[in-house]
């Protein structure tokens, strides 16, 4: 146990995407000399390639910094980075529970966004001290006074409490670090008490087993301690404990208020659940810490290997991903068209994309992802309720009492210029208006209730487009409501392809079916035979089109016995076919299964 509790500050940064959170973290790393100029590159804490490419943070990544304060004392800062996208709210809630304070970072041009507010409320619920920070004050069109006013209204703080920085230029960073020392309370906790530590994240290391990230509340956690996990009474011996520097740094112990890691040696992450409490086996604490709320998958999609032989590899890869991502679920399923695969649960579409890309990059998997679906509830005639997350299991023939679909309450903050367009969008998306109020003279908040399925696909893009990028969105699940829903099937050459089915509102089925068959016609290549594409509801065909048979694909001329050229051409063509899946006698390209995503639903 190295540091006096009084000198520890545990905090996170709450910010909307692109409001400069990662850049601010970079400045802290520099000022505290946690990292030297040589090692510095942008977004140091975003370790995944995917994060750096997309400029987003997906996995929270804690880091410990030594800060010499204005009073000459040495402080320990534990910064817990958090993701900003709406899909990853659960990552935020984990990070919050390990902190005493939060920096609320708002872009000086864009102002407060809906997403930021919801994270802010989460932080306030967790009893965190909030330090409001306006970033990007260096930009000529910065609206510092305006945004200050927003923050004052939102938080009920004084103008002077709002700090102004430019993370890019390093302006105001010193003042901010002093504010962290002064305003964020040091952690409380009893070093002599029984050990109580919260797992707020974990990852799996092939050599060290499950590595859990902990925040110690009471007691001291040491190397070679015999530790018990309260949720399942699993006991293990700590192989190593330590802090997060840029890399990990081993230490003898972690005391109250400290944030660090533990090598458990446990061979599966399933037993080391995020949210669980660690304690000593022989001297356990009496009560578990309250974990965070269980994260429920909202969006479901089938993942199938392109090559059936990859099934086991895919399962192994999914298991590994799940180790680091408790919000991601999967279970085996079979499709008549695609064979053996998995029905996977996600938080949202971005989450689907991230998982899909990670499987393709990190595990080199060729994948087919089916159209994302939400979880429907079928109330049967005998009153029993069945949940379905796969359109293929939608009951046909109307043999049920009613179908219910999940609804969300959306909160949209927008300049008032775009209210008309946004209301129109919400109407198109089957939204029910709840209320509208003004946040300031020219800015207002709209509340709607909308079927989750409607906002899944392109809602966010459309919202951004009708508001020229100014409107921001947040939503939360409010429950299931009855809906007039049907299943739309697609048949290729008369054979229904289960993996292309979608559940959709009756009024939209016709348009959707037409658009979908058109999209499929575009992506399915011409082949040996005509391919008839039909969209049907029940036995009724509502749209049909076809891909005409390929006319010509032959290498006719043979110059002086150059057989190799012909073969190589064949092989090149064959390479292109690797992204095809045989469905009956039709070759269907990978992207066809997501063609539905490209369908414009609102017209």
């Amino acid at each position, binding site marked *: 146990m190295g540091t006096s509790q009084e000198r520890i500050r545990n905090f996170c940064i709450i910010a909307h995407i692109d409001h400069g959170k990662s850049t601010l973290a970079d400045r802290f790393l520099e000022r505290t000399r946690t990292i030297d100029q040589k090692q510095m590159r942008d977004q140091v804490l975003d370790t995944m390639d995917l994060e750096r490419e997309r400029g987003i943070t997906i996995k929270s990544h804690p880091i410990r910094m030594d800060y010499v304060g204005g009073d000459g004392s040495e402080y320990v800062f534990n910064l817990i980075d958090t993701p900003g996208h709406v899909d990853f709210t659960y990552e935020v809630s984990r990070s919050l529970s390990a902190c005493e304070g939060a920096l609320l970072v708002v872009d000086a041009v864009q102002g407060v966004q809906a997403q930021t507010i919801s994270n802010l409320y989460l932080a306030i619920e967790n009893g965190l001290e909030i330090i409001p920070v306006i970033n990007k004050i260096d930009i000529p069109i910065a609206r510092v006074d305006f945004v200050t006013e927003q923050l004052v209204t939102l938080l009920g703080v004084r103008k002077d409490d709002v700090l102004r920085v430019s993370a890019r230029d390093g302006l105001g960073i010193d003042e901010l670090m002093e504010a962290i020392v002064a305003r964020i309370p040091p952690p409380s906790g009893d070093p002599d008490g029984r050990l109580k530590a919260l797992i707020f994240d974990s990852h799996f290391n092939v050599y060290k087993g499950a590595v859990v990230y902990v925040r110690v509340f009471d007691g001291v956690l040491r190397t070679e301690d015999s530790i018990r996990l309260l949720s399942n009474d699993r006991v293990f011996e700590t192989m190593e404990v330590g802090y997060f520097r840029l890399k990990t740094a081993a230490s003898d112990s972690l005391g109250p208020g400290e944030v660090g890691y533990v090598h458990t040696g446990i061979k599966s992450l399933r037993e080391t659940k995020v949210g669980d409490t660690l304690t000593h086996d022989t001297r356990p604490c009496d009560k578990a810490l309250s974990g965070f709320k269980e994260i429920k998958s909202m969006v479901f999609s089938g993942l199938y290997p392109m090559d059936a032989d990859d099934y086991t590899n895919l399962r192994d890869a999914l298991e590994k991903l799940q180790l680091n991502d408790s919000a991601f679920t999967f279970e085996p399923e079979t499709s008549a068209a695609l064979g053996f695969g998995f029905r996977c649960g996600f938080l949202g579409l971005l989450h689907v994309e991230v998982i899909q890309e990670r499987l393709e990059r990190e595990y080199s998997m060729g994948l087919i992802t089916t159209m994302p679906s939400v979880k429907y509830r079928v109330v049967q005639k005998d009153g029993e309720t069945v949940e379905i997350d796969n359109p293929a299991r939608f009951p046909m023939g109307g043999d049920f009492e009613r179908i219910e679909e999940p609804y969300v309450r959306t909160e949209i903050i927008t300049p008032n210029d775009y209210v008309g367009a946004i209301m129109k969008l919400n109407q198109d998306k089957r939204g029910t208006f709840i209320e509208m109020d003004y946040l300031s003279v020219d800015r207002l908040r709209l509340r709607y209730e909308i079927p989750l399925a409607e906002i899944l696909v392109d809602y966010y893009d459309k919202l951004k487009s009708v508001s020229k990028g100014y409107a921001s969105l947040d939503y939360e699940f409010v429950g299931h409501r009855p809906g007039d829903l049907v299943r739309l099937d697609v048949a290729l050459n008369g054979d229904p392809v289960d993996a292309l089915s979608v559940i959709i509102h009756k009024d939209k089925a016709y348009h959707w079916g037409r658009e979908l068959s058109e999209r499929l016609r575009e992506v399915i290549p011409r082949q040996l035979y005509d391919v008839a594409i039909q969209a049907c509801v029940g036995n009724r065909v509502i749209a049909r089109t076809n891909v005409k048979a390929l006319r010509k694909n032959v290498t006719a*001329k043979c110059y002086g016995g150059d057989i190799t050229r012909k073969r190589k051409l064949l092989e090149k063509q064959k390479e292109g076919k690797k992204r095809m899946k045989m469905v009956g006698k039709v070759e269907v390209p990978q992207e066809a299964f997501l063609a539905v995503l490209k369908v414009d639903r609102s017209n």
Partner: protein
Amino acid sequence: MRTVSLYVHIPFCERRCPYCTFYHVPKTDRAMETRLVEGLIGEFRIAGADLGRQFQIPTVYFGGGTPSLLDHRSFEILIDEISPFLTAGSVEITVESNPEDVNERLMQNLSGIGVNRLSLGIQSMSSRAQNVLKRCTPRSNEQAVRIAKRYFQNISLDLLLGIPGGTARELEESLAAVDRFEPQHVSVYCLEPGGVIPPDTDDFFDRVDMERAADEYLLVCDRLRTRGFGHYEVSNFARSGFESRHNKVYWNGGEYLGIGPSAHSFIEGERYSNVPSIDQYLAEWPMFPRTVRRHEVRGETERRLEEIMLDLRTSVGTPLDRLKCNPRLVDELVDEDLASIVEERLVLTDRGYLVLNEIVHRLSGGPWAASA
């Protein structure tokens, strides 16, 4: 005795044809030609020694480029060199020629040294089309055939399909000319990209209408058949007994030796290709085969793919028991009139030939081949 066919590549061309994607160079001077002939002879001797000198050459093919640009003296030297190996009495010696090169003297010379088959690239009998292709006038074509027929009893004409801007009438003109010329053999090619060098103009192949080329192909197949030609290979039609013996060696897995820059060989089950550069060839042929001739290594999959592809190109087809695909697929091909079954062999129809590559993909295995 072992038979090895011989292909001689003459890379010279008077000018560039806009659709051509094969290796050729402008002929600059006599010295260059002399060095090429020297190289060809040197290469032939080394290759012959490698073969143990115990072989006969049943067919010889002078291809290009434009072999008809070669000086008569060069032909004499080359034929002299190979004549001890030629199969006595029944050798087939083909020379490719540009119609505008055809004159009494050339014809006399070629037939005088034993050439007995002439392949003329007439391409089309429409002046518009010949203009697009930057080829000679239909009149030159007509004249060339007239002269050639006086010296050769085995003439093959090349026709091109899918010529940009082509019409049904133009194709009729070409087909009518075929009726008039009465050749023993016709080769029909669709314009297609995919050679070793890009076409003259980037967009040349964009202007090729594949749909029309396919229609034209079916029409030509039909017409030539009614005129008594046998359709013995995707692109080749012949009066009975006049099939190109040399080309059949390619399809049937016979051995052949190719000499000259960019020439290809198939010896003892292995494929080789010569470097497609006349400069490198001329500089390095004495080191043959180390640098000039490259071994094309093929695995089991590659060999199998070639086998099926070559089999299906011909009217003999491929034995059904060689196909390891789902039997349902064969039924589908027959149902769709893309193939028929003749004496336990799968033989493609005209429509099948048009999508030969696609059919080979389906038949040659891989996850996409298995019908679920």
